[in-house]
């Protein structure tokens, strides 16, 4: 027997055995993550979602994580996910995940945010496969969402969800007035900050054919601007201003802003085109459920 035919037979045998073995290990998969490839097998039963985006992704795919972090600026699961999340254990805050609390939950998968430190990653991956999406919050939010979906073994469902969002924004885009400028602002009495238009919400608004205000578009490196001088308040002006507030009572933030004459003379304010929105969605989360909420908010504000 020639060496060549021997090799062929061996290759055939390997292929056959691989094919036979495949159904058994169908869910064994390797994911590209920020800190190298991660091996995951089976469907995770005890998922810990570190961050609002990870929690959003898991819940939108019908998976109930066992643990998550208190959202930025809050002490609980973000309001918009509260009902869907149900009873869930908090394992620290975005700033400081509590490793012991996570270990106690005995996770079999950890979904982390893209800015998780290498140090924490090293410790977490000793407990369970830990997925840190590549890139940062400035990249297409769909990519992060899909990474989580893949990690959960729900790539197809994930893609369907994204297609739903794309379909809905395309449909909404037709009904919206085109070329309207928008800005997303967080109000401080000493001066507001404007959110970068390159993040999750900015991407969605762009898909809707809305134009980012100039200063928001200029924030290509930072999630939001520094505190703007009140003298330059006109730079937050747009056809529509979305006032993102971390306070549950958005009206109070608007009232505060209205006390400032520099704010009340903006054309958007004069026209009544200021909309208060949930800052937990509009300034710190991303994902399918958040996207639906943003589209709801825009539809309600611009079309009703």
């Amino acid at each position, binding site marked *: 027997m020639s060496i060549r035919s021997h090799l062929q037979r061996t290759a055939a045998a390997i292929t056959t055995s691989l094919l036979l073995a495949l159904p058994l290990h169908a869910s064994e998969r390797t994911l590209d993550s920020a800190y190298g490839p991660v091996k995951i097998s089976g469907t995770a039963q005890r998922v810990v979602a570190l961050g609002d985006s990870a929690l959003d992704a898991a819940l939108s795919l019908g998976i109930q994580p066992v643990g998550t972090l208190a959202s930025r600026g*809050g002490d609980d699961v973000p309001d918009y996910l509260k009902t869907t999340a149900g009873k869930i254990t908090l394992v620290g805050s975005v700033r400081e995940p509590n490793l012991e609390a996570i270990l106690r939950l005995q996770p079999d998968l950890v979904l982390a945010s893209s800015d998780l430190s290498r140090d924490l990653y090293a410790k977490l991956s000793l407990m369970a496969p830990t997925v840190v999406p590549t890139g940062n919050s400035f990249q297409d939010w769909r990519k992060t969402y899909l990474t989580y979906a893949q990690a959960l073994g729900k790539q197809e469902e994930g893609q369907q969800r994204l297609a739903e969002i794309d379909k809905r924004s395309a449909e909404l885009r037709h009904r919206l007035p085109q070329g309207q400028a928008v800005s997303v602002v967080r109000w401080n009495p*000493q001066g507001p900050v404007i959110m970068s238009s390159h993040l999750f919400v900015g991407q969605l608004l762009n898909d809707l054919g809305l134009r980012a205000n100039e200063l928001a578009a200029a924030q290509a490196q930072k999630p939001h601007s520094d*505190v*703007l001088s009140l*003298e*330059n308040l006109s730079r937050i002006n747009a056809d529509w201003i979305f006032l993102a507030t971390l306070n549950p009572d958005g009206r109070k933030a608007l009232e505060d802003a209205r006390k*400032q004459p520099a704010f009340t003379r903006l054309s958007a304010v004069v026209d009544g085109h200021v909309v208060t929105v949930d800052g937990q969605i509009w300034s710190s989360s991303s994902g399918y459920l958040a996207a639906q909420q943003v589209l709801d908010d825009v539809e309600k504000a611009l079309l009703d």
Partner: protein
Amino acid sequence: MLAARLSVPQALSYTAVCLLLLCVASLLLGAGDIGILPSLQALLGGSDEDARFIVFELRWVRTELALLVGLALGAAGVLLQAVTRNPLAEPGLLGVSAGASFAVVLAINLGASAASLHLGVAMLGSLVGCVLVLLVTRMRGVGDDPVRLVLAGAAFSSMLGALSSLLLLWDQRTADEMRFWVIGALAGRPLDTLDWSLPGLLGGLLMALLVVRPLAALALGERVASGLGHHPQLTRLGTLLAVAILVGTATAAAGPIAFIGLIVPYIARRLVGSDIRRTLGLSMLLGPCVLLLADVISRLLVRPYELPVGVVTAFVGAPILIAVVRNHRLPTL
């Protein structure tokens, strides 16, 4: 004691000219696109709507506020240095401002929000801070050592700062509102701030005028003061009450702004010597000067954004603090 280099009227008139110039600068300079020339035109009755708005509605208001807060902090600094006989005593360093802002943070956390309530709460907080300062100065080995007193104050300040951060951690949603109470600013204060803080300022100054003579006598020693018919203890309490009212008012109006109470008496002493009867009046002009200068700088450094003025005063104040400490002939007041 430093020799007086200028007569009081001379020093007062030089400072008054400086103050006038700084007021004009404060109206003409800003982080916005309205430069000096359009601002000047608006000031002289030009019709550019935007320029008029920025000069009269934004810069004018914060200039007035800087005058009020600078005056209060300058006077409070001189009084506090006199009563503790310590050239490093400063409401910000000794924890008086921290007391005021912690009280406000606590009140907001408990559900208060009316601005006028802030004033009373801040005064109460700074009064508590003042009483602690008084207690510390009575401690053997601490009260008579300027640096140790400041160390005690720094410890007290950082404790209050930690407590404030703790409250912020509990209730992070109000963090944006609270940030103001951690480092002060003159921009964007509600329009009625001046209305309710003016009575506080006047009350504090009235109190200061009452104690200035006994305080000067106290500088010569307790026995001399008693011999001249003054009550040393009553004088101290009265002075601290004046400081509490002034610092409480300033903090409620503009948040904690450190180092003004250190910079101002330092300059005043250099100009006219250390007698409080000479420095108090001068410090009331120097305070607004220093604060206005810091505020103008805070607008120009990071245009089109702004720094809180408290950051700038710290940058100016810290070197002066070091200079005073390094000066081997630390003046005993």
